[in-house]
């Protein structure tokens, strides 16, 4: 299945990309997606192992199970205001 991955701020700069679609097996979790991403090496390897994530625009635990078409965002510590 496919999930759409979004990167922001520092993570976007580290990775050198802000959006990517990746293929993951059915039943994959947020953690699995982060692993897949980090395994690609280069700047992506510099992403943290356990970032805060959002699934479909809501904060979510890393062990959240994903579904085809989900939007997963990797969020650096936030600093609004």
């Amino acid at each position: 299945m496919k999930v759409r991955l979004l990167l922001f701020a520092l993570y976007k700069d580290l990775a050198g990309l802000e959006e990517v679609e990746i293929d993951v097996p059915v039943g994959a979790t947020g953690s699995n997606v982060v692993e897949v991403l980090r395994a690609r090496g280069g700047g992506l390897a510099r992403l943290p192992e356990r970032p805060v994530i959002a699934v479909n625009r809501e904060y979510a635990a890393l062990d959240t199970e994903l579904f085809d078409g989900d939007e997963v965002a990797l969020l650096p510590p936030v600093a609004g205001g």
Partner: protein
Amino acid sequence: MHNALTRDPIDVAALLPLVGDPEDGAVLLFVGVVRNHNDGQSVNGMRYDAYVEMAERVLGDICREAAVRLGTDRLAVVHRIGELGVGDASVAVAVSSPHRAEAYDASRYIIEEIKTRLPVWKQEHYEEGGGRWLEGHVPQTGELA
């Protein structure tokens, strides 16, 4: 209740007519402004990035939670994103309520929650060149448990 993210300069006084009611005895307007310094360094600007679609949703959540504290739905919050200069308003929060205690409490609640939950990031630009993403807060929400 009014809440929005915007790339345009915030007209802070324009938030006042969005709140207020004949029942209300207290109106409170908070404005967050880009400062010319931070951690001992001279700052000449700030870039605000956001996960816009999520930030709009979270800002709505924060406002609904604040309305319970406020006892009214008379609140207006605007957060700016993009490139800001020193003195530019980055966020403005207006609330009104019958009594002042609830207005102060709700106003403070909104700004503290914005700082810790809103998916927004800021990069300072320094007088001497360069910049850096400011260290932020790890959102502590029930959803993360």
